[in-house]
């Protein structure tokens, strides 16, 4: 009887979930109901659209503080999705003082801010604030996805590198040539980013480039509602499914300069890999990174393939035996949330950051 009742109720809840997902009509109440972003964050510095947050309540730590640079494309709460699926929660439990940048919603006035500005001015400023707050001389710099590439760029600059004691890269690309579908698309004849964004002033709206994201993994998109139905009764599945769907649909605009640079400079010219990208007027080379590095790569990543991250094996740190490189059998995001493999990921990260 109880089971019959459950079966009758399930489709209704399922229908509601699918409807919210299709219409993308998620609200703050949905986030609260699911208990998303379980780690308390306190804003310690704000400028333009970005905020530097300090995580947790207990800030005592024996280790250098950790500064997390999230991707510019998505929101940073993928690091703190749900209780038990939160990298921040794990880092705090390991006794680390953790700071995370929230890039926020850029406005049209920030249109001229490209990667150089994000790294040499804003990221530098965030690290300066962390150093002042904690009284430490160095920080442990961490970055995810494009944020990982930004962290690697920071660590490649001879002056900026002095601020960091270690570098942790999570699914961070360096060599963007043949790095997956996105690199194929940007490499096709007629893909002219100047023309594509000609109508936008200052910012490139999220809806413009996010429309193409589901096409990176069409099979997964087609099967997502079926997978939800099939696993509906597995405890915790629908919560994590919905939390990921909320995160996936909560997209952020790009400053026009950063978007153009991402496509032209990093994808089409592969400038970081070739050592042709300049920060503060100095060309940077990832091969110069000599601080201890942890690079975690997702084997089934549909955004960047493993080859994109492999270049880090050519850096000085690798030659000095200071590189930990792991390919984890998971996807771009499931590396740190949703997938059981996240437990292994958390252990690797904890071991590295508490050395």
């Amino acid at each position, binding site marked *: 009887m109880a089971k019959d009742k459950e079966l009758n109720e399930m489709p209704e809840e399922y229908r509601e979930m699918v409807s919210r997902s299709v219409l993308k009509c998620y609200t703050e109440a949905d986030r609260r109901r699911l208990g998303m972003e379980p780690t308390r964050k306190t804003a310690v510095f704000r*400028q*333009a659209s970005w905020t530097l947050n300090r995580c947790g309540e207990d800030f005592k730590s024996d280790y250098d503080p950790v500064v997390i640079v999230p991707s510019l494309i998505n929101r940073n709460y993928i690091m703190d999705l749900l209780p038990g699926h939160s990298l921040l929660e794990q880092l705090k439990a390991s006794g680390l003082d953790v700071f995370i940048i929230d890039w926020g919603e850029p*406005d*049209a*006035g*920030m*249109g*001229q*801010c490209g990667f150089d500005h994000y790294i040499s*001015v804003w990221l530098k*400023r965030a690290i*300066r604030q962390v150093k002042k707050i904690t009284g430490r001389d160095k920080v442990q710099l961490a970055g995810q996805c494009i944020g990982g590439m930004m962290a690697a760029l920071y660590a490649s600059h001879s002056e900026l590198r002095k601020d960091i004691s270690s570098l942790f890269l999570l699914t961070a690309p360096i060599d963007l040539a043949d790095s997956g*579908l996105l690199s*194929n*698309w940007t490499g*096709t*004849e*007629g*893909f*002219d980013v100047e*023309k*594509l*964004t*000609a*109508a936008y*002033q*200052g910012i490139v709206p999220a809806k413009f480039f996010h429309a193409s994201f589901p*096409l*990176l993994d*069409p*099979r997964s998109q*087609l*099967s997502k509602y*079926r997978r939800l139905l099939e696993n509906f009764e597995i405890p915790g599945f629908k919560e994590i499914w919905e939390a990921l769907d909320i995160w996936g649909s909560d997209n952020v605009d790009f400053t026009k300069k950063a978007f153009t640079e991402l496509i032209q400079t990093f994808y089409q010219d592969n400038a970081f890999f070739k050592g042709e990208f300049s920060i503060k007027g100095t060309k940077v080379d990832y091969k110069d990174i000599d601080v201890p590095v942890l690079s975690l790569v997702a084997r089934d990543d549909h955004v960047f393939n493993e080859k994109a991250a492999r270049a880090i094996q050519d850096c000085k740190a690798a030659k000095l035996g200071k590189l930990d490189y792991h390919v984890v059998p998971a996807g771009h995001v499931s590396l740190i949330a949703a997938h059981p493999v996240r437990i292994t990921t958390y252990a690797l990260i904890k071991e590295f950051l508490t050395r």
Partner: protein
Amino acid sequence: MFTMGEDMMKQWATNWEKMMGDQLEKLVTNEKFISEMSKSIAATMTGKAMYSKMLDEQMAAMNLPSRTDIVKIMQKLTDIEERLVDLAEKFEDYTEAQGSRPAAATANQNAAPAAEGKSKKHKK
């Protein structure tokens, strides 16, 4: 758990999913398709940009600020904020440097005017 009808539906859904997946995958990996799509979107966006420019001119003719003007002002505000934060940091560095100067040096500096005063008094 599933009835015969539900099984058939499930089979149909699986087939549809596979067929659509195959087709979409072919499409998104087809260089010609991507190239044509890019060109088509670029042409649309170029048209949109031209329309925006025309609107800007109309706004200017009416002596009204256009979006371009507003974006320019916003950029100036961003620059001003940047310079203010930069100055605040420089001031912080300066005050910190002043505060961390060796105590003896600071004491000497503070003592100097007093000593000067004393010597003047002595002269008198």
